[in-house]
């Protein structure tokens, strides 16, 4: 099962290395990780999606808490939260296919962010499932390149 953890950390150099090192040293699996400053520039938030059973994730949380520079670990899986991912997807097109790709993007509330004679690049944001779904549809049209962020998440309310 996948668990989404929101980890507040001191915005110091080396913190990401500590967290990454913890996961590799203890054999925990990271599905995705994203890091950014919060509204307080001295604090960063890491959204980490971890794969494992209940006991492994329990250890992950405890080990994260043990790191001196970790301020707070929240397991969003236990709470109501909103999550988003962003993907940029470049698809190879010709003049006849272009219309079709734009229609797919429209259905997913995606945006066309770049266009050329032979390619079109779509930006899409949403839940992991939604991003997966559009990727799946576009695959048959020939995805040339793709970049996808990790998940970011916030508790509701």
């Amino acid at each position, binding site marked *: 099962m996948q668990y989404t953890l929101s980890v507040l*950390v*001191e915005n110091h150099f*080396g913190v990401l*290395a*500590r967290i990454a*090192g*913890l996961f590799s*040293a203890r054999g925990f699996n990271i599905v995705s990780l994203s890091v950014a400053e919060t509204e307080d520039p001295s604090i960063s938030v890491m959204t980490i999606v971890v794969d494992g059973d209940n*006991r492994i994730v*329990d*250890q992950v949380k*405890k*080990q994260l*808490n*043990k790191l*001196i*520079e*970790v*301020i707070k670990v929240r397991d969003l899986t236990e709470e109501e939260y909103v999550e988003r991912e962003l993907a940029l997807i470049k698809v190879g097109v010709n003049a006849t296919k272009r219309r079709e790709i734009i229609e797919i993007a429209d259905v997913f509330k995606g945006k066309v962010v770049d266009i050329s004679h032979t390619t079109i690049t779509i930006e899409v944001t949403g839940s992991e499932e939604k991003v997966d779904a559009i990727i799946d549809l576009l695959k048959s049209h020939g995805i040339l390149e793709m970049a996808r962020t990790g998940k970011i998440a916030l508790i509701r309310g």
Partner: protein
Amino acid sequence: MTISGGKILVECLKREGVEVIFGYPGGVVIPLFDVLYEEKDIKLIHVRHEQGAAHAADGYARASGKVGVCLATSGPGATNLITGIATAYMDSIPMVAITGQVATSMIGSDAFQEVDITGITRPITKHNFLVKDVNDLARIVREAFYIASTGRPGPVLIDVPKDVLTSKTEFVWPEKVELRSYKPFFKVNQGQIKKAIELLEKAERPVIYYGGGVIAGNAGGLLTEFARKHSIPVTSTLLGLGAYPVDHTDPLYLGMLGMHGTVYANYAIYHSDLILAIGARFDDRVTGKIDEFAPNAKIIHIDIDPSSISKNVVVDVPIVGDVKDALQELLKHSFTVRTDAWLKQIAEWKKSNPLTYQQSSQVIKPQFVIESLSRLTKHKAIISTEVGQHQMWVAQYYQFQSPRTLLSSGGLGTMGFGFPAGIGAQIARPDKTTIVVAGDGSFQMNVQEMATAQFYDIPVKVIILNNTYLGMVRQWQELFYDKRYSAVKLAKISSDGKEYYYPDFVKLAEAYGWWASRVVTPQDVEQALKDLLAQKGPALLDVIIEQEENVFPMVPAGANLTQMIGGLA
């Protein structure tokens, strides 16, 4: 007035109460050694290898309860500390390691003697710091000592670039440490205490299993009081030895459990219906096959580190907090634990499977040496061990009476630890006889520290249980690898088939200016030990023991605790 970073660092160490530093100089830390040169309040012990500095600081910390401090230069000096830092980390020993670093402007340029020591030590320190600005130095030193000594203790490394040592600033001592992300104090949860008591009242076969956390938490007395108040039998990990006074005639005392534990400790744990684990972490050397560890027992676990709880075994009642606080809470309540029938069963196991060995009148048995040593020192010496068979014989046969008297690398199992750690302990406790029990293999791993002991007149005693083998590996090869003794023989065998001891430890010790002697027959052991103990300065006794003696009982790796070989009735 502004002062240099080097002076600030030393001033901070003094304010932290540091009296001794174990160090080795080198290029970038010369400015720091220059400050220490005229420093009266801090004794600088110049070791002969940085690994010795780290272990000596560790031994100092284990024997005194204070933070041990070691110091090395950048690059190879820093990397030589690593085994010592990892040893302290695995056994939760408070230590501050200070390393020099190339100047901040050179960092990342592969400069001479540059190594990313904060990167390298990240997984083996509780925390580490690279000081980039002299204005941060005092605060960082303060935080380092605070982190090392609070909560579950551990080593903290401070990497100080050369220009930080030489640049000047106003010295400001931070009165308080403020770390919003580090809150090591947990109040013991009353609800959990109640749940624990309910389980204790219901239990029919309870056992207390305690470890190094009881020593670190200075709770040996409370543990003993609690166990005796409720007549609950106790068993110790290697690092817990001394927390409860060792006496095998004490009906509550089971000795050590696990791979080389007593038969009755392992039986008691296996058949128990409730384990009260205190400051111990269910290491694989203790549990044996984890799925078959204490199959019918519920578990209460007191530990200051939440991540120790339910890591290896699932715990029914976790109590997070200082072991001292938790034991005090448990002692406040009145309740009854019924253990009469259980103690009767344990007494039978003790009677039918005592800890014993085959004495010999021809060749010296290592167990006999340790028994004699225990008696001659009235069970009160500080014993520092290396790692291997001799370590287990010390754990089995020396009757430790108080905490902080056994120093041993339990978690990492570091050969080369015991001798420098013994030097550190002797400096911490000049009032106590300090004896290093070593194997002929382990002792050679930091043998150079004989120079340190001689140079500073440190009266540490060394007993080498010399079996001409890396005995523990040989034992495994004998039992599990068809006696294929690969890379374990240490004596030289000449062309005519005779073997001779080498190095000659007596000559070696004498080369360092030590008193040294050798004993080869059982009848002479007592006098030889007395002669050793009578020496005023550093002294070594080479004890030629049975070459192929094994440590028994033994739970083979991967077996459950009742599947012991050797030592069974």
